[in-house]
């Protein structure tokens, strides 16, 4: 454990120090390790879907390329940029919290939240496109079962509609699960903003900002993998 300066505050106990911890250092360390362990769990959670993706991409390369070509690469790219910037503002928010600058800290948190919501908005637009193209797999939406115009899809040789449906099933499962994590992240950011405005965080106590930051970066990284796998691979088949 790293030796820290015993400030007067620490001797009397920081107001945010929970009763069962010895000091702030221990509390922060527990929070950070906890989040890392949680992220390992998340990795395994997404791992199951990545495995399914890898298996079926290998089995149905043509269908996956055809279906992938139909995704809106512009919106996907914009969303990638949005998330990368949001990761940057999140990192700044952590930094400003650590050095105790309240105003920039709040601004950065709000910016991150706005960018996160932008991502979700764009994602909603994309989902709606898929809905109008009748690309929602199965009978999840009973009024619009899967039934795209095969011509509009530009099916490559060897691709069949059931396989395209498989792609969209995996697409919705992965991006949907990712979007759910974004929504949870947005909720956590809202909590951080409220607490920041109340002035709860200071250089001694900034664990929550840090660990929610970790979570936010993780969700971004998942997207960094999803974007090429779902949108880009097989792009060169386009004609």
């Amino acid at each position, binding site marked *: 454990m790293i030796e820290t300066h015993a400030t007067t505050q620490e001797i009397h106990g920081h107001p945010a120090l*929970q*009763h*069962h*911890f*010895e000091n702030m250092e*221990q509390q922060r*360390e*527990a929070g950070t*390790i*906890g989040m890392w*362990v*949680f992220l*390992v*769990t*998340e990795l*395994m*959670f*997404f*791992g*199951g*879907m990545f*495995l*399914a993706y890898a*298996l*079926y991409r290998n*089995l*149905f390369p043509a269908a996956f390329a055809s279906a992938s070509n139909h995704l809106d690469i512009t919106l996907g790219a914009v969303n990638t940029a949005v998330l990368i910037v949001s990761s940057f503002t999140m990192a700044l928010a952590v930094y400003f919290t650590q050095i105790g600058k309240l105003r920039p800290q709040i601004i950065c948190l709000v910016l991150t939240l706005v960018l996160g919501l932008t991502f979700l908005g764009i994602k909603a637009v994309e989902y709606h496109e898929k809905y109008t193209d009748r690309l929602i*797999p*199965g*009978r*999840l939406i009973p009024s619009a079962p*899967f039934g795209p115009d095969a011509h509009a899809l530009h099916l490559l040789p060897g691709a*069949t509609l*059931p*396989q395209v*449906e*498989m792609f969209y*099933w*995996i697409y919705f*499962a992965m991006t949907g*699960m990712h979007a759910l994590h974004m929504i949870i992240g947005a909720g956590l950011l809202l909590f951080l903003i409220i607490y920041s405005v109340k002035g709860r965080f200071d250089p001694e106590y900034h664990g929550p900002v840090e660990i929610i930051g970790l979570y936010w970066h993780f969700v971004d990284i998942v997207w960094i993998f999803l974007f090429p796998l779902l949108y880009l691979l097989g792009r060169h088949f386009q004609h």
Partner: protein
Amino acid sequence: MQPIESFEVPAPPKVNYINAQYGLKSWLLTKDHKRIALLYLGSITFFFFIGGIYALMIRLELLTPQGDLLQSTTYNKVFTQHGIIMIFFFLIPSIPATLGNFLIPMMIGAKDLAFPRINLLSWYVYLLGGIITIYALLAGGVDTGWTFYTPFSTTFSNSYVVATGLGIFINGFSSILTGLNFIVTIHTMRAPGMTWFRMPLFLWSHYATSLIMILGTPVVAITILLLAFERLSGVGIFNPALGGDPVLFQHLFWFYSHPAVYIMVLPSMGVVSELIANFSRKNIFGYSFVAFSSLAIAVFGFLVWGHHLFVASQSVYAGMIFSFLSFAVAIPSAIKVFNWTATLYKSSISYDTPMLYALGFIGLFTLGGMTGLFLASLATDVHLSDTYFVVAHFHYIMVGGALMGYLGGLHYWWPKISGRMYPEGWGRFSALVIFVGFNLTFLPQFIAGYLGMPRRYHAYPPEFQVFNVLSTAGASILGFGMLIPAIYFVWSMRYGRIAESNPWHLPGLEWRTQSPPPTENFEVTPVVTWEAYEFAPPEETEVVGKFGPELERI
């Protein structure tokens, strides 16, 4: 909860975690790991009772070969629900969420787990998952087997698969949160002087268990979720109609569910390590080997899932690799058994109830583990898979192993948990009854299995009846044996003899505070200066069999 009082000895009024606060709210909103452990204890006992009733129904139905007591649809639901309740709602949380929750902070000298609120949340998550599952059972039940094999579960079953799946999915988070909490606690909350290699082996095995919980559970969570969505949408990745692979489900499912067996048995091994050392007043023989074998089991446990698919059209070479690894995972378990046995050498063994359970555990686990080799070996597995041999094998591990350890641990720490002693005579008697009943139930099933009786059969050819009659007779004894502790534990909460702080006279940290402990566990943070299981000063230690010039004369 009543304040402690006794008509025999007027106890000095001590503030402890039980009488520190009163009222339902103080329990439902508690952040004290000890109270949460008791909340878990109550709820898993409830689920164990339900699962036990299902077990009894199965055994009654199988008494005769015709399948005359229950209809086949009912029978299918009964065995499915027996499995789901017992595995997800009893065995997986059994030791970690009760004994682990109670003791991990106490054994490392901490005031609480690292995240007390998450700990409470995990109980509520467990409860929510349980309520949804109970709803599914009451609404009409589920008949897929606890394994939920596709495409039967996604397309063909006409039962409450989605609701049950949701219950299991939610319950999984409880397990993840518990595991996360344990890992962080063991890493960051150890008292001064409590180094990794001074930790009781109970903590090592819980650390290994937690690793499996956080790595495995999310995979089964996503698998069950995909299965539920597949059922709702009518298509999906396991559906052969889309070119999907139904066997993919089995891979994902067993990737969790095989390690889940170790979630059930590893904590039990931890308990047994405690019992063997403490009731023979001896340090564990080969401490570090026992500690690392827990981690080895956790790691290897993730590499053997394919042995459930030897006959499921897996490639021959994949089968060989998984067979090899399955044999490899048996070695750390063997090391544990040998070390426990060696610990008893030249020790001072008492015959208290917990020790009887520990000795029973070693015997039953040895047989359970060795019969696992029949299923790791390819050719015999082809004949034995999906027969009663498998049923007998995993009950030896899960009941003979996990449950024996749980009961042993519960007796051992009962004075600490409740502040009262259980009746020793009844304890020994019930341990004996359970041991006999258990063996009579499951030994005949090994033979029935090799003779070819398939599992999950509602009616069966008459030549297997003799084994089923024996089994049912054993199950009745087992059920009776289980009732005895249930009764005397409840009885002892009010009428049991008041327990001392350290009724067994042991060196462990959890015994160095009052019984029941105060809310903060220790008056002052302890400083640890002794090794685990240090009954005698270290300079008296006898060194045998080091790689050196001579092996010390025995």
